[in-house]
């Protein structure tokens, strides 16, 4: 009868060690018994044990998976562990010849990777802002088109229903405020953001549209960056006007807190343009028809909070809506 040969491992990166193999003349039963005796696990880390069953000549092999060793080494280096090639080679001296170049090239690649990352990040920083502005202009152009489409309704209709969330910005700028004047502007982006937040929390008017602003806790309390985008789009569409002015006097507490001021070192005043006034008037007419209290509620928010000192405004929000103060950087200053 033809004897079957033990399987040969052809992969050059895998080495087999014959651990126990009863010789041909030995009592097979005894050999099998010896083979079945439990052995302590003496395998080095990274080595895989594979058992090849052969009824004629049972052979147990240890397969050293060099790729796994290199992968473990890579993982450790990536995690920042201090490990050198020689440490690994010492564990597997028999495979040093194969293992060393693989480990060394890994070190080389990781070191080069660090340099490449540093270099590319520095290089990118030079045109980062310019590239984003280029992209943003194209992105906003789409939104401007949408706003213009919405605005086109006022040519044919006297009153226009509130459909989009940016229309709250127009209404907020339109209604009378502290100075009892229609179209009174709002100073500072923080007052704007917080007034829009209070509209949703105190009046529930946000339910007039499908998607209102989604406020999350941030550095100065409730925040949604989409408001920044909408203001920019409305400005591009010629509906609102943003004027900035620099203070020569020493900074007041309010300016230090204001999100826009922190960003630009400038105080901002938002007002409606003539086009914006026409649009807002059409929206206001619709509101009057639907429910007389809508404009009244908005006016109350604008009068009370739209021109309040920022510290006072934030104190009110922090005390009444503490869930939005989690990320606040000024909470201690505000609530003291």
């Amino acid at each position, binding site marked *: 009868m033809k004897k079957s040969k033990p399987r040969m491992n052809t992969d050059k990166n895998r080495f087999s060690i014959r651990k126990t193999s009863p010789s041909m003349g030995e009592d097979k039963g005894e050999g099998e018994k010896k083979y079945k005796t439990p052995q302590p696990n003496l395998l080095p880390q990274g080595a895989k044990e594979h058992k090849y069953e052969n009824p004629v000549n049972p052979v147990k092999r240890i397969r050293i998976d060099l790729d796994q060793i290199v992968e473990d080494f890579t993982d450790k280096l990536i995690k920042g562990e201090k490990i050198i090639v020689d440490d690994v080679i010492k564990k597997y001296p028999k495979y040093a010849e194969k293992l060393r170049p693989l480990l060394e090239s890994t070190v080389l690649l990781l070191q080069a990777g660090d340099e490449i990352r540093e270099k590319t990040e520095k290089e990118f920083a030079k045109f980062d802002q310019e590239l984003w502005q280029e992209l943003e202009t194209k992105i906003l152009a789409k939104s401007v088109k949408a706003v213009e489409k919405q605005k086109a309704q006022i040519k044919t209709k006297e009153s226009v229903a509130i459909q989009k969330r940016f229309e709250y910005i127009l209404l907020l700028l339109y209604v009378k405020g502290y100075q009892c004047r229609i179209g009174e502007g709002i100073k500072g982006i923080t007052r704007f953001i917080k007034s829009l937040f209070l509209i949703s929390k105190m009046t529930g008017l946000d339910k007039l549209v499908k998607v209102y602003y989604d*406020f999350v806790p941030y550095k100065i309390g409730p925040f949604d960056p989409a408001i920044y985008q909408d203001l920019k789009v409305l400005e591009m569409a010629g509906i609102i006007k943003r004027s900035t002015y620099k203070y020569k006097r020493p900074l007041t507490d309010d300016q230090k807190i204001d999100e826009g001021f922190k960003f630009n070192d400038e105080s901002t005043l938002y007002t409606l343009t003539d086009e914006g006034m026409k649009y807002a008037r059409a929206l206001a007419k619709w509101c009057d028809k639907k429910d007389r209290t809508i404009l009244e509620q908005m006016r109350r928010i604008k009068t009370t909070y739209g021109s309040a000192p920022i510290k006072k405004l934030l104190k009110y929000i922090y005390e009444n809506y503490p869930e939005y103060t989690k990320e606040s950087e000024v909470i201690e200053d505000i609530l003291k």
Partner: protein
Amino acid sequence: MNNKTPKYLESDESCVLRAQKNESNAYQVLYSRYKHRIYQYIWLRIENKEDARDITARTLNKAFAKLNKIKEPLHFQKWLFKIASNEIKMYHRSLTTRIKTTSVEDMPEHELSENSGVSAITTSVVWTISQLSQQEQDIINYRLIQKKEIDEIAKLTGKKIDAIKYILKKARKNFTEIYKNKYKLGPEKKEGDRNEKE
């Protein structure tokens, strides 16, 4: 997304869905998340590093313009790198149509190093990577330059973990061979080491 989830922890999928509704902030999140990775990916694959900026801009412009057409927002990352890869291919194709200039292989190494602005060793590594197949280059880049986990690479490339391991093994082996043949690999051997071997 509820109020408890800050937007900076938002998933790609959610960002893409918001971007499709024209929220520029969602675009900004995606831009901040991928700008360096895309630039680095492109930088590694082209010889003239000055062109990397233009290709990055073209890639991001194209991606953002076509964001509404993305079928699987979950795989935004894979989709974005595919666009980058196509842009690189187009760039290389356009290069071949231009008048033939000195190829990178013929270029003296000090010039290569000056061009890329990195150390000579890194330049040699970049050159060696460029000699690998496209697939091997990608996997080496993800695993050893961008330091990603194998399962993350699998998700990114849409391949199975075993396939990634196999390509990585091949890539390492080829890289080592090419590097060993062209440059010297490993630290200089001390006298003691030599004696030990002898």
